[in-house]
């Protein structure tokens, strides 16, 4: 309500009695008579002197009161550690005493005193080794301050801390579970093809927006897709889920790659209108058995196949990379493919890839090309470097290619800050060819 400092301007002192009555000789006299001895005995903290082995030799009245013990019970009869709880004694022996011996002092250690009536008093303990003129340690001086409030606060803090840890763990479990539902648990085995995939999760607490899938059609052909929904977290995960199931349904309805992407574009446009547009990049492929082996468009892929044909369509997605059977690499772009979900009549084009035995098609999201190269935090890895990497790698099977890219991703370290999905499909060389080199 009002500030009680400063002298009473009237000098009259109308009641209250809080104001310092200027020139009160009695108060000054009392202050001057406060002796060192009395300060020691009745200090607002406990004082304790012990021998180097902890035996108590001197203790002040404050501490004997806290402990509920007489001076006679303590001096010469007990060690400092005897005043502590058992846990505190263990801590004293394993931490406090060794550190005090090595450093000559130790401060602010939280311990609990055990009083005669069994109650516990949380305290903070500071000790100092007093040395003689020759530097030899003589005794240990200890001050003990009441820490009940602090301990209560700490207990609360620890509880909150544990709660935060538990919540974070729960969130991560949730995110991991959700992430798993957005990816096939294992890649389907495609007869005659070697397939492999890898997913790098950038953050344990946030669901990423990358996705891929590989699945059979009723007529023996196979389809696959890989893409990246803009954004992260729960909202992006919902879009990812919609995109994945729409792509699968659209493929059943009409597997023509351009038709699949057009239908996805329509669904996204309908679903997310107005000021909440959601879009994604996708590359979609339809695998047909090699016409040379089993006749045009008929029969499933078999290990005897001489290869296969893949029709790709993509919207806004980085181009697929072909690792050629005879070495070298080439990008297989689908020019003009627009982001999926932005405009109602998005345009998509196709590109046809022949996969010979020994050839591998590599699909990736921009987490790979946008990763920052260690040592030069500004430089992105980029498509050019990826091309060189792939060219040096080829020829390589799908598993080997994904393993190599996985190692590459790991080499970026902290420079890899986004999710990255990798999918590779390759036609294995026939053993006769392998034998021939």
């Amino acid at each position: 309500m009002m500030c009680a400092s400063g002298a009473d301007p009237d000098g009259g002192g109308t009641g209250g009695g809080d104001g310092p009555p200027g020139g009160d000789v009695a108060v000054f006299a009392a202050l001057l008579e406060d002796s060192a001895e009395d300060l020691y005995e009745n200090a607002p903290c406990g004082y304790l002197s012990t021998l180097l082995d902890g035996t108590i030799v001197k203790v002040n009245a404050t501490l004997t009161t806290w402990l509920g013990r007489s001076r006679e019970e303590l001096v010469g009869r007990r060690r400092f550690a005897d005043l502590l709880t058992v846990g505190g004694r263990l801590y004293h022996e394993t931490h406090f005493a060794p550190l005090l011996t090595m450093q000559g002092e130790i401060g602010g250690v939280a311990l609990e005193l055990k009083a005669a009536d069994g109650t516990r008093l949380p305290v903070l303990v500071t000790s100092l080794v007093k040395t003689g003129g020759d530097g030899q340690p003589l005794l240990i001086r200890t001050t003990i301050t009441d820490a009940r409030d602090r301990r209560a606060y700490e207990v609360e803090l620890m509880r909150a801390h544990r709660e935060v840890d538990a919540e974070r763990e729960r969130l991560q479990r949730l995110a991991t579970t959700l992430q798993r539902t957005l990816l096939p648990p294992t890649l389907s085995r495609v007869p005659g093809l070697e397939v492999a995939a890898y997913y790098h999760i950038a953050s344990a607490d946030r669901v990423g927006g990358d996705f891929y899938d590989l699945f059979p059609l009723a007529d023996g052909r196979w389809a696959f897709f890989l893409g990246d929904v803009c954004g992260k977290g729960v909202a992006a995960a919902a879009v990812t889920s919609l995109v994945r199931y729409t792509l699968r349904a659209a493929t059943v309805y009409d597997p023509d790659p351009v038709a699949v992407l057009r239908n996805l574009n329509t669904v996204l446009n309908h679903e997310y209108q107005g000021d909440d547009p959601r879009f994604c990049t996708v590359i979609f492929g339809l695998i047909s058995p090699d016409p040379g082996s089993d006749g045009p468009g008929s029969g499933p892929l078999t290990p005897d196949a001489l290869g296969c044909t893949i029709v790709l369509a993509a919207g806004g997605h980085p181009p697929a990379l072909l690792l050629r059977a005879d070495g070298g690499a080439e990008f297989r772009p689908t020019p003009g493919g627009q982001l999926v979900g932005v405009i109602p009549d998005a345009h998509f084009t196709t590109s046809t890839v022949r996969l010979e035995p020994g050839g591998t098609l590599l699909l990736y999201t921009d987490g790979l090309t946008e990763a920052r190269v260690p040592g030069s935090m500004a430089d992105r890895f980029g498509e050019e470097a990826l091309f060189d990497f792939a060219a040096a790698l080829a020829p390589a099977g799908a598993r080997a290619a994904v393993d190599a890219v996985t190692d590459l991703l790991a080499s970026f370290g902290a420079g890899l800050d986004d999710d990255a999905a990798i999918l590779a499909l390759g036609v294995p060389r026939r053993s006769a060819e392998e034998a021939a080199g």
Partner: protein
Amino acid sequence: MLVSGREDGPVLLLAHGFGCDLNMWRLVVPVLEERFKVVRFDHVGAGRSDPAAWDPERYATLAGYADDVLAICAEAELRDVVFVGHSVSAMIGVLAAIREPERFAGLVLLTPSPCYIDDGDYRGGFSRADIEELLDSLDSNYLGWSAAMAPVIMGNPERPELGEELTNSFCRTDPKMARVFAHTTFLSDNRADLAEVGTPTLVIQCRHDAIAPPEVGRFVHERIPGSRMVTLDATGHCPQLSAPEATAEAIVDFASRR
């Protein structure tokens, strides 16, 4: 790992116990260095050990630490080792010597306890509740320490000033690792292993030790075939600090005969 002393001398391998690091040996090392090649190391999770080597599963049993001791011996090509283990490291040495007896010429068990918890007629000195209380003690103390210590231990090069603000320059530990080590230390029971020791063994204990009382040291001595025991007129659990001369003398006396 620190190697000092006589390069061609017999090997003493010093292993610190729970609560500190290789600094624990600083008062006895000068004496030991006169005759021996002295090898000291920090257990994983203590001192300057590599935080990346930490694995809560591996270090949930003393066997994980014993594996490390054997790995150090193999890596540094140490032979005829006299292993000096303080506190919990005494039992780590027992396990290592059982696994690879050919590696060790002797075991010095400094204030050992094969089991800290009372069990039937066996008096370890503590109950399970006491050990929980210790873990609480650790928590409340690391609360003050962890903010300053953890970044240094975790290698935080962007904030070097943290290194200077350390409350304690010795015995640094990461709180989480210390908690696991405390569990492993105080909840282990290695009583049955003692009879398996075939390595010549010296037990060193203190007359007054709140953690490993004299009868526990005697138990270890009685169970290890052919072992010898020395009781120092010292107080506390760390005679290498409270009575360094007598401790060093006992180690030198034993190791010189190997």
